[in-house]
């Protein structure tokens, strides 16, 4: 199967190939649940498998031949060399047939609609290309870059290596310079989402990808002038819903907070603080009604924290 990798896939193999393409037994990844018409026609590589869906990578666009992809205005995405993603929700045999068909169709459609609407609203998400609700398929652009989780791990390792002799202060300063601007911009992007009354439903550092194209760090970060940070892209809207309730948005943020605590335990305090700083600054872009709303959400977040898992309600 395909050995051609995108630039990012060559650097970060862990996220990319769940099936080790080097061993003979895995040379043909399990495509048995994908409709054969599609798996025969296109070169697809399984790159991730969740409880609900399988994610495939393809160098080919479903309907634009490669000869045309090179042209600038004929492309539907900005970076054809990054490839495309096919998200497949296979049928679940343990469910009742009719129910399964309905669930698959509904969840696929919901995700596709949200991707498109968020794109129209200017939020940073993968470009939506096509959908087949009956078969549970969504085509979208691939984001060629690491997840926030991988990026933070890499940067922390880099900082530690470069400044191991300088001690904690030097390293902490570096984190401020390098990691904070990005987390501010992450917070700001989530704020845009919440301002549109959309909650993600599964906000983790694995569902935030970083696109290679850089842009200037968000305002307010010390030393961020002229520093280029990657652009955060929000992915995986399979559990998303519309909600105006501050409670739901607070829960969304709390899920992200817990994700930071579990995957980046040492500095999660700083990281969460920076994300929330970016969130508050970016919510509604400082409009008066927005300031009131975001305060409501922050208050709810405090309440949700008190409730959380493994919290004693005694006393």
């Amino acid at each position: 199967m395909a050995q051609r990798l995108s630039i990012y896939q060559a650097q970060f193999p862990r996220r990319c190939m769940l099936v080790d393409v080097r061993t003979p037994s895995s040379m043909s990844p399990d495509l048995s649940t994908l409709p054969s018409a599609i798996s025969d026609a296109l070169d697809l590589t399984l790159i991730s498998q969740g409880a609900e869906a399988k994610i495939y990578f393809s160098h080919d666009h479903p309907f634009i031949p490669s000869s045309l992809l090179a042209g600038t205005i004929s492309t539907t995405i900005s970076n054809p060399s990054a490839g495309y993603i096919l998200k497949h929700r296979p049928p679940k045999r343990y469910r009742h047939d009719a129910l399964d068909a309905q669930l698959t169709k509904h969840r696929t459609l919901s995700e596709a609609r949200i991707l498109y609407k968020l794109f129209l609203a200017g939020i940073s998400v993968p470009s939506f290309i096509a959908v087949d609700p009956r078969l549970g398929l969504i085509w979208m652009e691939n984001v060629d870059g690491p997840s926030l989780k991988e990026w933070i791990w890499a940067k922390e390792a880099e900082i530690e290596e470069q400044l191991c002799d300088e001690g904690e202060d030097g390293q902490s300063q570096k984190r401020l310079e390098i990691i904070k601007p990005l987390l501010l911009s992450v917070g700001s992007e989530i704020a845009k989402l919440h301002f549109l009354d959309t909650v993600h439903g599964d906000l983790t550092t694995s569902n935030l990808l970083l696109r290679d194209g850089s842009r200037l760090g968000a305002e307010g970060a010390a030393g961020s002038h002229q520093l280029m940070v990657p652009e955060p892209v929000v992915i995986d809207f399979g559990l998303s819903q519309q909600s105006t309730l501050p409670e739901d948005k607070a829960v969304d943020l709390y899920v992200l907070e817990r994700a930071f605590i579990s995957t980046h335990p040492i500095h999660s305090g700083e990281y969460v603080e920076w994300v929330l700083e970016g969130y508050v600054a970016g919510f509604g872009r400082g409009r008066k009604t927005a300031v009131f709303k975001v305060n409501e959400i922050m208050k709810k977040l405090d309440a949700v924290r008190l409730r959380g898992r493994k919290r004693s309600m005694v006393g």
Partner: protein
Amino acid sequence: MASGLTLRLPQFPQSSVHIGLYTSVTNASIIRRELLSGNTRYSYAFVDPRSVFSLAHVLAAVYRALTDMEAGGMRTRTLSSEIVFAFGGTMNIAETLRRFGINDDSDSLLVVKVDTDQVDRSNSVWDELGEIVQGTSIPVTDENIAPLTDVETVKKNYKIQQGISLADRSEATKVVAGAIALRGYL
């Protein structure tokens, strides 16, 4: 003899998609009349390029029509009419065919023909079209499609809201291709 573009959609390697582009068309009303009367010689998708942004836009409509056909879910009688219907973002067939299809006053035409069998008919397609369309055949490229686009017409036909800019063709293509993919589902 000028000819158009023949290509294959990656997901449908068995099917050939022929696309032609004509300017200075003088017999639009005649073509339309023959088309409506069911003349089988005219089994092509005739699209008014005023509402077309790019080649990718055209392919998005062809893809939608083909996948609907494969799934047994076509809403019009033929693949050609389904392609024109696919351009629209609504379920209103008559309205979409009127807005995106050939009009009596169309002075340029984008023509699409899909062969779902393996027979190579590309040469005869251009010959036939040359007889049907009284106009000048120009190469089917984004550069040639661009000047024919009327952005106001596109905005009206797709009911594009304020605040969404169609200035960048690549972004605009994403907007219309998304609407095409989500027709009936949004």
